[in-house]
């Protein structure tokens, strides 16, 4: 067996990566499995159990043999009497999986040797065992403190912002300048003719709606405001109902959009994933479910003297996605084949994977994340800076409310990186000390 030094999982001999956490175990030597519960009791252990019966009250399921960290397993092999302590104390057993294995091992060393690692065990060490059992203590895991901090950093700004004192202070975190890719996207949408047909790929689901809805509000709101005909489809089953709800909310909440009386066409879910993209690029109507919406689309397009037999007739392809692979598939399977001008609204996580297409000119514009949504809304409001959109109270977009939460969350993440990294470096130095 090879025991993962990271999580303690037992892996088969010859494994290079841990089956549980994926950690590199190629350099970890193979070790025999720890003693099973039904092993024959050695005479010295039997004598020990007779003297100290609490050690026999082992809970077999407290910790599975293959969950024991390798250092602890090694220690138990060297000093078998510790196996009883490990199994007898659920809190300690739980700690062995929750804490770095070295810490548990060093604690057991200290408990067994009265503070001198490497020394032979003394009776005083065993005297401590029942005390541990009577007062089980689970050490506070530092990440729990950070979890609380993260929760506060995200929730507090959302709670405080509606209050008058916060509004009067009119504070904003540092906001970056408007990126060139966002400006290009804005110009592409702003240049759409009145009768334009815009195909929207609504390729995100409720999982990422918190971020993506802000982008959709900015981009789709602008498209509707230009008087274009919106045609919406999705490669995800949960995409169409989300699109329907979000577009309805957007129109209801924005009087200027409601005045346009938009009639977006919902084509629904197109099964097949990336395979369907080939069909959409060659014959979009054929790829769509034969519903009344499709017939309605055909009628409306014919009224405008247009057709959808080929995406060349589409004035703009707007892809809203939280997955870089999905965005990439649209660009490679549809944009490259049809030449349809494409604007992508992507989550911040997906954007790096799509940025090369924008830099190479295959995609007209790329709007991503909270910052991108804010920058786009600022441009829509006629501002020259991203911060401008959050100054005007009447048209203040929803994304302004999230800026402090985002800033606070990122701050806590930075703090955790620095504190966690610092603690680990100190621990390494301490261990390296003779």
């Amino acid at each position: 067996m090879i025991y993962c030094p990271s999580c303690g999982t037992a892996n088969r001999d010859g494994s290079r990566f841990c089956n549980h956490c994926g950690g590199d175990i190629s350099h970890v030597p193979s070790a025999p499995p720890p003693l099973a519960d039904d092993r024959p009791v050695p005479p010295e252990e039997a004598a020990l159990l007779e003297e100290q019966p609490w050690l026999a009250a082992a809970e077999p399921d407290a910790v599975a043999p293959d969950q024991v960290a390798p250092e602890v397993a090694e220690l138990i092999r060297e000093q078998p009497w510790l196996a009883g302590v490990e199994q007898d104390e659920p809190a300690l057993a739980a700690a062995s999986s929750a804490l770095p294995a070295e810490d548990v091992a060093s604690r057991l060393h200290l408990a067994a040797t009265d503070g001198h690692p490497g020394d032979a065990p003394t009776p005083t060490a065993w005297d401590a065992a029942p005390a541990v059992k009577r007062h089980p203590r689970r050490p506070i895991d530092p990440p729990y403190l950070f979890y609380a901090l993260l929760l506060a950093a995200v929730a507090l700004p959302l709670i405080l912002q509606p209050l008058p004192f916060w509004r009067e202070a009119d504070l904003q975190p540092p906001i970056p300048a408007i990126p060139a890719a966002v400006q290009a996207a804005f110009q592409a949408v702003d240049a759409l003719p009145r009768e334009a047909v815009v195909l929207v790929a609504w390729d995100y689901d409720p999982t990422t709606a918190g971020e993506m809805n802000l982008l959709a509000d900015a981009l789709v709101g602008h498209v509707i405001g230009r008087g274009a005909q919106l045609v919406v489809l999705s490669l995800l089953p949960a995409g169409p109902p989300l699109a329907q709800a979000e577009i309805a909310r957007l129109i209801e909440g924005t009087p200027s959009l409601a005045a346009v009386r938009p009639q977006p066409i919902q084509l629904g879910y197109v099964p097949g994933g990336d395979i369907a993209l080939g069909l959409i690029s060659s014959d979009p109507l054929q790829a769509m479910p034969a519903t009344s919406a499709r017939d309605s689309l055909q009628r409306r397009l014919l009224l405008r003297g247009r057709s959808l037999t080929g995406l060349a007739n589409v004035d703009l392809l707007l892809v809203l996605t939280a997955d870089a692979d999905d965005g990439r598939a649209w660009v490679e399977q549809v944009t490259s084949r049809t030449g349809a001008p494409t604007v992508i609204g992507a989550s911040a996580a997906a954007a790096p994977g799509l940025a090369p297409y924008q830099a190479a000119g295959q995609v007209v514009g790329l709007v991503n994340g909270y910052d991108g949504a804010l920058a786009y809304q600022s441009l829509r409001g006629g501002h020259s800076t991203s911060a401008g959109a959050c100054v005007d109270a009447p048209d203040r977009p929803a994304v302004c409310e999230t800026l402090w939460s985002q800033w606070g969350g990122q701050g806590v993440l930075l703090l955790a990186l620095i504190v966690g990294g610092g603690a680990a470096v100190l621990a390494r130095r301490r261990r390296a000390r003779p």
Partner: protein
Amino acid sequence: MSRLHGVARTARSKAPLLPVAVAVASGAVILASRFTSWPLADVAATVLVEWAVLLAAVATLFGLANLALRHGRIAAGWERTASTPARSRRPNRGRRLLSLALLVIMAVTLAAGVISPEGADSPLSTWLFTFVQYPLQAALFSLLAFYMLSAAYRALRPGGLSAGASAVFVLAGVIFLLTQLAGGEGSWLQAVRDWLIGVPTLAGVRGLLLGVALGAAIAGLRVVLGLSRPYAPAEDEGEKSP
């Protein structure tokens, strides 16, 4: 080595010819539609892709049936699960109740869409989506922030990545977060961030995309040439990647 090749050849020759021929022909037609302007290839490719889309839709139905069957067996206590205790033959009551709940909810959702003339836009379907699926999915994903935080805190812990890789990870994270947090408009930190995103990150992603494209091209060619057979039955599995 030569013995291995011999074994591979023998196994390959025993593989059914028809699936290989269909896969090779389909791949060739799709490739021809991409790289030639032959109208017949275009028509044939469109038909093939339509079939693939239909198959995907039917596969969803099979998946649904399989899910219902599996959870029906668990709910009835006929099938063990991964969480079933070693000494027990039947899954525990909680697990069976969960499977039962899944079946009931699945039936209600399905009925709401099938019975209503409005289909998937029926009021009950919309209600289920808005008040059950949406918050559940969003809430589950929000936990990612806590996982990220935990990962950030433990990045340098011994036993995970090597010390060098961990240090690079932490340093990159600190620099990006610092420039993000303090890099407002006009700040030199924003210039640093823009450069980091525009030069090293973009170059890295381009490299990745090129690698992915080359890998996909090779994998596709192997399927088209019949060297890889992901569609082959299980006994031919060893020959998937000779």
